[in-house]
């Protein structure tokens, strides 16, 4: 059980790190949101499943499952609200323009 838990924790840490690198390195807002929104939920689920596997108390298991369910509902909702707000405030146009400037200056 320890080995399986370590495997889950390792996968979760890798996903966390890739999300962190994504939020630092990607060029514009929507790609950054893609990196974070995709990795956040799965990394949280992996790490919490890894913790459930090594816990011995039933109450601790229940609390971890509550956190897992809450994250599964909350994280996509927050991502959706964020993308919606960014779209409604015309962030797409500005970003597109700056990207065009970047590509034209590169070429």
């Amino acid at each position, binding site marked *: 059980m320890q080995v399986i838990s370590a495997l889950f924790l390792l996968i979760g840490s890798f996903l966390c790190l890739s999300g*962190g690198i994504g939020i*630092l390195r990607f060029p514009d*807002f929507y790609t950054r949101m893609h990196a974070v929104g995709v990795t956040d939920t799965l990394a*949280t689920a992996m790490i919490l499943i890894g913790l459930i596997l090594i*816990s011995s108390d039933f109450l601790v298991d229940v*609390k971890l499952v509550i*956190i897992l369910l809450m994250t599964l509902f909350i994280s996509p909702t927050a991502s959706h609200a964020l993308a919606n*707000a*960014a779209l409604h405030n015309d962030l797409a146009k500005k970003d597109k323009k700056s990207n065009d400037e970047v590509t034209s200056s590169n070429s």
Partner: protein
Amino acid sequence: MLIAATIAILVVMIMATIRAIMGPTVYDRVLAVNMFGTKTVLLISLLGFVMGRPEFLDIAIVYALINFISVIGVLRYSDNFTLKKSEAQKK
């Protein structure tokens, strides 16, 4: 492995803080803060297991709820008139 995961999450939190400081728009900052909050929930639960005190999970539950409410609140506020106006004045 618990300690390695804790260190990885700390590194990711530092990355999110850097993006929150230098993010060009408000939404980048909100995104980084949201990610920071999610990673804080994970960090609290991992630290509870590292230190052998799983009562920390209650704090993690409360922190997840506070994080969600704060992100939604800031987004509702950014739909407001004032923030747009201050952004336009900056440019």
